[in-house]
């Protein structure tokens, strides 16, 4: 019995030991030329997606020149609500949702389509915990910038024809299998959204993927980049006018990025964004 008392005393002494408190550093934004491509799997029926979207908006507010966002309303939880005016689903969004497996649930976010080791250990590609998304953005920003991507566009508001050229300027020699993707997203769309069980009828949807001008998983672009030698690719696209109120040129953004798809990689090296109408 004496031994037990001694042992209990030792345990209580252990518990009473105070550890040195950690210091939470003040936020200091990372200075980087990289532009991180963030895609979020979402849906109007997804109760936790407004939290994910708000988190991404906060991250973009911290890094306005370094983050571009695409919200993919693919298959799961993306069917319009009874209160919905619009259907954000489209074929490219559905293809991307399948392409981006494995993910655990919505919202899930991807950061330059990097396969992070700790997620892979859990059999995942998409990151479900929105509280940690800023960390992943910053991890990407801390990597060296290897390329600049520029979007050059001309848009005729009468014919609604868009000519878009993507220029990639490598900052070092790189080899691989490079693909270019060009996406059109739309913001400031007011429509219904589930928010933890409550339907918000006038929710502001931003960065909604409307169409992918290239193949949904990109078009072949190059297999070799030589430092300071830019490569370009041009596309022509007519912005639809379906009379629903969507496809408002004032609210459309053009997103472009270059990915290295060599082997198992889908890593995006650099992204860019321009508004359709300045």
């Amino acid at each position, binding site marked *: 019995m004496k031994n037990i008392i001694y042992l209990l005393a030792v345990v209580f002494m252990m518990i009473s030991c105070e*550890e040195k408190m950690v210091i*939470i550093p003040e*936020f200091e934004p990372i200075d980087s030329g990289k532009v991180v491509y963030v895609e979020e799997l979402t849906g109007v029926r997804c109760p936790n997606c407004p939290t994910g979207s708000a988190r991404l908006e*906060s991250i973009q507010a911290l890094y306005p020149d370094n983050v571009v966002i695409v919200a993919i309303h693919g298959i799961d939880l993306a069917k319009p609500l009874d209160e919905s005016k619009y259907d954000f689903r489209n074929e490219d969004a559905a293809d991307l949702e399948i392409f981006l*497996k494995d993910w655990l649930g919505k919202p899930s976010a991807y950061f330059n389509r990097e396969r992070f080791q700790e997620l892979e250990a859990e*059999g995942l590609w998409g990151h479900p915990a929105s*509280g*940690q998304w800023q960390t992943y953005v910053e991890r990407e920003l801390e990597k060296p910038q290897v390329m600049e991507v520029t979007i050059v566009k001309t848009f005729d508001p009468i014919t609604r024809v868009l000519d878009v050229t993507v220029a990639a300027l490598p900052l070092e020699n790189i080899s691989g299998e490079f693909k270019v993707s060009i996406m059109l997203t739309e913001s400031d769309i007011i429509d219904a959204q589930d928010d933890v069980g409550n339907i918000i009828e006038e929710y502001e949807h931003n960065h909604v993927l409307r169409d992918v001008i290239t193949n949904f998983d990109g078009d072949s672009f190059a297999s070799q980049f030589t430092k300071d030698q830019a490569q370009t690719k041009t596309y022509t696209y007519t912005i639809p006018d379906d009379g629903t109120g969507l496809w408002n040129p004032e609210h459309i953004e053009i997103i472009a990025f270059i990915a290295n798809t060599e082997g198992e990689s889908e890593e995006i090296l650099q992204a860019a964004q321009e508004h359709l109408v300045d």
Partner: protein
Amino acid sequence: MIKFIRKAIWGLLVLGCVSQMSAQDQGVFSGNFESNFNVFLRDSLINANNTPQYDRQLTGGEAWLNLNYSVKGFNMGVRFDMFNNSNLLNPTSSYTDQGIGRWFINKQINKFNVEVGYIYDQIGSGIIYRAWESRPLLIDNSLLGAKVTYDLSEDWKIKGFSGKQKFLFGENAGIIKGGSIEGYLSLGSEESPISLSPGIGFVNRTLNDETMNLIIDNVKTYIDDERIKPVYNTYLTSIFNTLSYKNITWYVEGAYKSAEASFDPTEPRTEPSGVVTFGKFRKDPGSIIYSSLSFAKGKLGVTLEGKRTENFDFRSDPNLSLNRGLVNYIPPMNRFNTYRMTARYAPATQVLSELAYQADVRYRFTKKISGLANYSNITTLDGDLLYREMLGEVVYKYKRKWQLTGGLQIQKYNQEVYEVKPEVPLVSTVTPYLDFLYKFSRKKSIRFETQYMSTKEDFGSWFFALAEVGLAPHWIFEASMMYNITPSKKSPQDPETGESLNIVYPTLGVVYVNKANRFQLRYVKQVEGIVCSGGICRLEPAFSGVKFSMSSNF
């Protein structure tokens, strides 16, 4: 070092085999093998699609081979695990890996027992610590480390352990240490004996720097008012006791967890823009009180259980979620149902806020007739209903010739919480069921089951029927079907007309048993549903295909 120990164990096992052949009395060699093999037959109508297995891999499976050897006070074992395009880790994705899933060596040295390797163990009912394995959910939380147990006396035992929690073929971050003192006391007189089995346990988890940095990276993005200061060390303690007096057994356990940074997905968080979102790290202490009282005398058996849980999410790494990294195990507080329909909606244990109680009464009216009644109620600490079940069952046995079981289950199930499904109402079900067993002879029997689940929610109402022929000791044949008799809007729909369909989900199966070997082959179409192991549950998608499983003990 670990590789060396693995090789040493393999060597000892091989040596054990050889020595067993030459001298049978030198040791005991035992083991078991379990394997699953699934063929995935895509059926987009029932949403059995869009996973790698349905799209391109077509098959998947798992296997576990466990070998144990005991000799001269040593117990040792090694387990080979294999996953080939398996859907166990995540039902919507594919997992492939293989290797040594477990090894251990255990030795009794006088009053000491020393064990190293991957160790399964628990303290009390597991509320502060449980290292366990559940293959249907691919949970294997064994501790890679060392454990020492010392017999203080015949009735008192003390143990201590330390290590890292296993995850697949690696380990989760964080060092877990703990110990307990458990004993037995006999009080009272011979006529009215009272026995006590008291115990006290402690657990400490220390985070590593990488995990802490992830938490800090997260917390530093919070507005000033919502920032917390995470700590490296978390301490848990529990005190428990089983009191036995005549026909009464009373178990009680109280547990406390010191404040740590744990992620609460329901906690409001203010974004820098002022928008309020949900989900953030909080730092509050947690507690659980759990008690179970059983009474059995003659024809009557009564069990009462109650549990209060507040903020008791304890993981090897607070950045993990769902079923990952759980260090403890909180007992579920509902009846374990076995019929297909009565088990369709099962509540997962809630670790942050739960108030639950359950009563179970069994009574044998005559030799032929017995009955039971069960009631369970689970709410949040704020009083929101999570689960309620009322079940009554009567069993009539006619000699040894036939047996008829009839019952009625009434349920309320908070699908929004348990399955994280938006906009879904509380599921209310009424499920009558019948089970008839007829024995033609000692070896030949036939069993029929029928159940009807009436509900307006989720997929609507169901009818289930099963016929099972047993030809002991080797064969069992089964045929069953689950029929969506009143489909709802959520049921699979006709792609052309959009009408909800009355779909039949059939199962055909055969089981062959030969001594300690069991083989099962089943053709299955199965609607999505909850799969639970203890109180740990997850939503499994629909399945369509063929399942083969075998197990063998030797």
